[in-house]
């Protein structure tokens, strides 16, 4: 059954992707490129690189779409594509916000104390 493209994703508004491997390859390369700008020790860079390279390796090694979905284990391949798009947008915004810097301002003394 390899090579048969599924008819529908079953989700409203999410069209079946005709070349998911190509799309994911492009997205993951862009994400990894955008992560290179961040400092080496930033936790976001570390964990995201780990996650993305793992998924990228799955994409490179597995040609069958259904088996790839099972390997990545995060829903359908179209959902994986939208997650990658979101991650790409996020990584670009993170380079602006720079959240790895130390805390902006400590909360006042009793701010989070509960009960009062």
């Amino acid at each position, binding site marked *: 059954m390899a090579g048969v493209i599924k008819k529908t994703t079953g989700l409203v508004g999410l069209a079946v992707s005709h070349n998911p491997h190509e799309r994911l390859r492009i997205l993951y390369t862009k994400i990894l490129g955008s992560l290179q700008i961040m400092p080496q020790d930033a936790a976001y860079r570390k964990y*995201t690189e780990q996650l993305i390279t793992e998924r990228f390796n799955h994409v490179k090694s597995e040609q069958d779409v259904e088996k790839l979905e099972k390997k990545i284990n995060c829903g359908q391949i179209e959902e994986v594509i939208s997650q990658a798009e979101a991650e790409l947008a996020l990584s670009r915004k993170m380079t602006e916000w720079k959240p790895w810097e130390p805390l902006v301002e400590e909360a006042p003394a009793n*701010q989070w104390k509960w009960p009062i």
Partner: protein
Amino acid sequence: MAASLVRFVRSGFGRSLNVARQSAAIVQTRTTTTETRPTVRPKDPVTHTQLSEFGEYIAEILPKYVQQVQVTCFNELEVMIHPEGIIPVLTFLKDHTNSQFNNMIDLTAVDVPTRQYRFEIVYNLLSLRYNSRIRVKTYTDELTPLDSSVPVHQAADWYERESNCSFVFYFIFFIKCETLLGVLILLRQVRYDDEVKRVVAEPVELAQEFRKFDLNSPWEAFPAYREPKDAPKLESGDKPAK
């Protein structure tokens, strides 16, 4: 059942994680015996550790904004952030592959008048992919505006207008400013009028005379968290008066 809050205090200095157990407050602990009251909520240490590890993960990625992370005794993860970090943290939780909290369930505020920043704004988020929830909390006072989270979650729109009307703080709206009160002006209010002895419909007035509430109750709310009363302190060198 010991109602204990395990707090992971994220300090701004140094990267070490302080696991400070709640030893400062007086907690009633009971020795572990066989469970004789099965209606008590059973503890779930596995979920607790999973949530606390995820909380540490978030705090490690966003140290610029995250001030504190805690997991309540009901296994709910709460992340306390600085108000500057509303949009970054909410965008991160929504877009990052490991979190994917793309559903905003609620946006409310808690008014604690005794604090310097009296309003505590609470965002409740849900992740459909991982079936988990998270709570993000910030703070503000009456005058400081907050960034609106509508660019991240459209659902925040109504909740922001509502909390704008219920409390006194305000958000910087990206879209045109229309509060709930503006909508109410167009409606009619119905009340029973004693003079004419029938129900009367008038334009909305929202009479404020009866809004003074006394929230003190005669019962102690949190007996487990009683603070020790300060004994009168002596200056060093003074002798106690006989």
